[in-house]
């Protein structure tokens, strides 16, 4: 169905205008864009490999040779930051994609079918929500085994209930609209009704939630890596860098400082962008 992207062309221009008029959204967008560019350009940047050790420069403070200093086995912290950005962003985006791809259809089915289908999906969602997000992610990651891929799956599953809830509530709200009744009145089947009438109209709040959840997922990945359940050594990730850095906080504070700043800025960026998207997509003030 090609009409959906086409159909958003006009509301989109208003959306961009509102987004551009919001300075914090622009700052958020720039922060996100910066880290995405750094992560993508990692192989091209003139830094040593992230796993290259220099035994003559162990735990050296920032200098001209190593701008961000070196870690406990002489690896360049800047390089590990850059390569670690890949793991962080990938974990954030992929786990949220997992959450959206699994959660939105479940939520839409729940809100569309109602009845016992809804009851079953809702009880399942509540069961998942009963456990705190990070605890659930840790439990799932521990169950699946430590690796970046499993960490992303664990975070995705832990973030899924939020998307089920939002998609369900939005679907139920859209279902009361006259235009959905008009789709039934012309004799439209369930699938085109969902793809043309429900999904495009519940998309904006899901996009906002996805952006904000990327920030949460990045922190979760850092937490899992910190606990050794995420990215496995020697491959770098900001969380695992923090994990090692905690042993040398007094001798080499820069080892903890840079990953901390990185996580802070990228999470801030996604949060500002998400808030900006929410305001720009809000139909109440045009």
């Amino acid at each position, binding site marked *: 169905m090609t*009409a*959906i992207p*086409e*159909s*958003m062309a*006009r*509301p989109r221009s208003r959306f961009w205008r509102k987004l551009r008029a919001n300075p914090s959204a622009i700052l958020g967008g720039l922060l996100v864009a910066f880290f995405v560019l750094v992560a993508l350009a990692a192989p091209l940047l003139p830094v040593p490999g992230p796993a290259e050790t220099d035994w003559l420069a162990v735990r050296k403070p920032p200098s001209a040779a190593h701008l961000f200093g070196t870690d406990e086995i002489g690896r360049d912290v800047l390089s590990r930051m850059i390569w670690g950005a890949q793991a962080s962003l990938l974990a954030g985006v992929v786990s949220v994609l997992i959450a959206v791809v699994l959660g939105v259809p479940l939520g839409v089915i729940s809100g569309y079918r109602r009845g016992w289908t809804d009851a079953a999906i809702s009880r399942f969602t509540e069961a998942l929500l009963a456990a705190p997000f990070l605890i659930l992610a840790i439990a799932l990651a521990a169950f699946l085994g430590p690796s970046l891929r499993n960490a992303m799956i664990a975070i995705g599953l832990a973030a899924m209930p939020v998307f089920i809830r939002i998609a369900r509530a939005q679907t139920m709200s859209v279902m009361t*609209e*006259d*235009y959905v*009744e*008009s*789709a*039934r*009145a*012309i*004799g*439209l*089947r369930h699938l*085109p009704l969902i793809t*043309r*009438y429900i999904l*495009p*109209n519940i998309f904006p709040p899901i996009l906002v939630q996805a952006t904000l959840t990327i920030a949460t997922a990045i922190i979760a990945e850092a937490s899992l890596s910190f606990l050794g359940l995420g990215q496995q050594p020697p491959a770098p990730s900001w969380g695992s860098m923090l994990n090692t850095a905690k042993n040398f906080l007094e001798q080499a504070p820069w080892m903890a400082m840079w990953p901390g700043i990185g996580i802070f800025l990228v999470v801030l960026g996604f949060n500002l962008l998400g808030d900006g998207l929410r305001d720009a997509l809000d139909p109440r003030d045009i």
Partner: protein
Amino acid sequence: MTEPKPILRTHGLRREFVTAKPLFGAAQVVRAVDGVDLEIAEGETFAIVGESGCGKSTLARLLVRLIAPTGGEVWYGGTNIADLDEGAMRALRRELQFIFQDPFSSLNPRMSVGALIEEPLGAHGIGTSQERKARVAELLTRVGLRPDHADRYPHEFSGGQRQRIGIARALASGPKVVIGDEPVSALDVSIQAQVVNILEDLKEEFGLTLVIIAHDLAVIRHMADRVAVMYLGEIVETGTADALFARPRHPYTEALLAAIPIARTGARRASAHIEGDLPNPIAPPSGCRFHTRCRYATEICRTDHPRLTGSGAGQVACHHSDTLALTGLADADTDRPAAAKARFALYRDAQARKAKETTEP
């Protein structure tokens, strides 16, 4: 009138809504439509009127099973659509279409006008992609829009234009029956006539049977062949539009007619024969449901529920319909001053000449 065969017929049609369901005890239900028998003849314009909350929109949706009835039958030709399975009902929707009240909320904001009008064709597998595009252009022209409007989005149009898009969408699949749920009540008065005219033209052109729901008698006066008056979920009077407007037989019909303002000097004022709101439909009054607001009510009205009686041409549910002499709307022409009559006659002649010229070039 020879008895034309009914295309849509209901028998004992009921729909209840549960308003509150306590953990113990009986659920509280509203009987929105309570035992409605209707016969709508092929090719006629049938109007269902009543005030807000009387159940007329529910009845409209029951006629095409946009909501399922609690009981009773809806016969379309030889099919009882009340117990048709989902697939068969969906296929039948090609012939039974619906026009919605609110043109602002009944068009999907994320679909182009062309996609909206083409959708019923796609849903029923009518024509090739090319043929559908041509049909969309033709329908747009028929409702007074331009074919290039197909690429635009609903929010770019005015209320009247949107309602015409809704009409084009309803007509796309070539339906036999079109139900309009207050199709003009959300529009400006100046636009209402325009949309009513389009509906009438299209009805002739496509040979439709129109069922129009309205709370405004003025709108349907010149449009409807027959009228059913609804009160608290029941039909209280049916009849041909002319007869019902001139000689109402139910006090409620009289009250509705009295509420129509007449734009003429010295005319009677629009008056309120009935006061107060519709009684609570959860606990409808005993006996005749209208007795709480009826100025002719007697003891029997409070205790006995009157049944709808009479022939197909005119039915009424009132204990006193034979004895009451109720006032209707006289033909507007009869008490016009002589000068005004002459002007109207001149105008009609001119219109007739114009019509003749256009038909015989």
